[in-house]
Structures are given as structure tokens and as C-alpha cells.
């Protein structure tokens, strides 16, 4: 799948020191996105995401470097939809950004 390449500035802007939203958030547990890095290859990341998705009965769609997952069960605030976008820093180093697109934050945190 085609991934977005990260420039030095993209990487630098990942710092929590630049994230002023913490000034406004009283409760960090309600954040609806998370980021992590991995030294696995892109295809390994995608397979792992698909594994997790099938365990939680999610439908999976892949598009432009993003793995889109949609829960099939109706939760409190509609279906849970999560996007996992994969960015490449080097072929052996990736950043995955996970964002909740809809649904209940509590259900999202469980996953």
C-alpha cells in the first residue's frame, strides 16, 4: 500500500511539547487519538491490525496508507469506527496514528 513519507518537520511536530491541546484538556483519558512507533514492516503492521480487527468483529477497509476499521455492533453512540494511518520514516521504521472516527470513547479505549 502507498504510504505518506514523513519529512523531518513532520517527525518534529510529533512532540507533545508542541501539542497545546493539553492546556485545555482536563482529562487526558478522553483523547481520541494515539500514536506509536514500530520497527515492523508496513505489511506486518497491516496484518497485525487485521488480526486485531477480526478479534473485535470489525470490518476492515484499506485505503491510501490507512487501515479503516468499523465495528459491526451498535454501541452507545453508534458504531465504533477507528482509522489507523501508517506513516513511513524509513522502510524499517513506521509511525502508526490511531484515531477514533465515531462511536463511544470508552469502547474505543478498550480496543
Amino acid at each position: 500500500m502507498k504510504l505518506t513519507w514523513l519529512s523531518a518537520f513532520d517527525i518534529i511536530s510529533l512532540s507533545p511539547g508542541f501539542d497545546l491541546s493539553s492546556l485545555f484538556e482536563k482529562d487526558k483519558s478522553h483523547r481520541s487519538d494515539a500514536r506509536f512507533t514500530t520497527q515492523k514492516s508496513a505489511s506486518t503492521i497491516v496484518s497485525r491490525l487485521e488480526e486485531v480487527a477480526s478479534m473485535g468483529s470489525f470490518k476492515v477497509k484499506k485505503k491510501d496508507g490507512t487501515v479503516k476499521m468499523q465495528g459491526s455492533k451498535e454501541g452507545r453512540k453508534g458504531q465504533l469506527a477507528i482509522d489507523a494511518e501508517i506513516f513511513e520514516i524509513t522502510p524499517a521504521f513506521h509511525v502508526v496514528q490511531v484515531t477514533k472516527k465515531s462511536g463511544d470513547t470508552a469502547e474505543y479505549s478498550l480496543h
Partner: protein
Amino acid sequence: MGCFHSTAAKKFPGHENPVVLASETTFSVSEVEALFELFKIISSSVIDDGLISKEEFQLALFKNKQKENLFANRIFDLFDVKQKGVIDFGDFVRALNVFHPNAPQEEKINFSFRLYDMDGTGFIERQEVKQMLIALLGESEMTLDDETVEIILDKTFLEADSNQDGKIDLSEWHDFVGRNPSLLKIMTLPYLRDITTTFPSFVFHSEVDEAATQL
């Protein structure tokens, strides 16, 4: 009882009339008042002097007043327009104005340029970017060897440094950001749209209401 503004001005050096601040920024008067509620919380967290110190800023951002961070320092320095080592309420509102979703792109582009131009030379030099990149790698769990760091810098400068003089000037930055709009993501805080709900200020504190009742 004097008007609220002069009382606030004594306790909060640099406090400016919300009506004035609203007229100079994208914020409404009630939004400025809501920002004041937030400002009061942050500026009193270590020393109650009506000013935000570096420690208080770090506490608000990281929930840890001792956490030194290169990037938070850059933000602090840009908020601290008068270079006094502290942020007053006027500084706070004017700087946050740039982060409002409705603020002009131009202002966000200029602010982000100054953010990365650490030594304020008017150019973002390769060495500065390298320093920031290494700092970021240090604070995250990412480890990249020096060769990979150089490759990332090479690719970045190839794309951004159009005249290939080893540094990025404002107009090159402008073009680069135009092609890579996600770089401005850090320059917008959607929270600022709902500020009056997150930090409601009570009606009897409102300067505007006081002024109205004095008529």
C-alpha cells in the same frame, strides 16, 4: 468599588481589557473572558502572581513542572513576546489567537516558521533541524542511526530548500507548507472554538456586565 479591569490589572500585571483584546483578535469578549479563567488556573499553579512562568507552563502542558522540553521552550519563547521570562494575559490571548481555527493561514505559517527558526536568524538552518530532530528522537522511543537522520534531512531539504543554500527562508517555508499542509496541524487548536463551554466565566465577573450596570 472600582471597575473590574483596574482590580484585575493590579493583581494581573499585563491584564488588558477584554473588549480591547477581543477587538484585536478573532476572539469574542466572552471568549477572552473564558481564556482569562484558563489563564488564572495556569498562572496561579506554582506562584500566584498573575503571570505564567516556564514552570507553570510545563505543569499545564505535561502535568509535570520540572519537565524541560525543547519544543515547549520554543512555544514559551514565542508567547513571551516582550522576552520577560513570563507570559502575561495579553501575551496569552494574542498568541492563542494564531491557533484559532479561523486565524489566517499567513499568521500560522509565520508563527511556525519562527518556531523552527530557533536562533531567530530569519532562516531555518539544517543544523537547527538536525538538533530538533535529535531532540524529538531522544524524547520518544524512536532510535535512528546517524546515517538515517542525514537521509531524512537530505530529503527534507531537497524538498523545502528550493535555492539549495542549506537553509529555508520564509518564502521557501511558505511554499513547502503549501505542498504539505499537515505541517500546520500543530498550529490549530479546535478547543478554542468551544472555549466558553470549557471555561465558563460567571456573569458577575463579567466586565462587560459591570460596565453596563454602571450606566
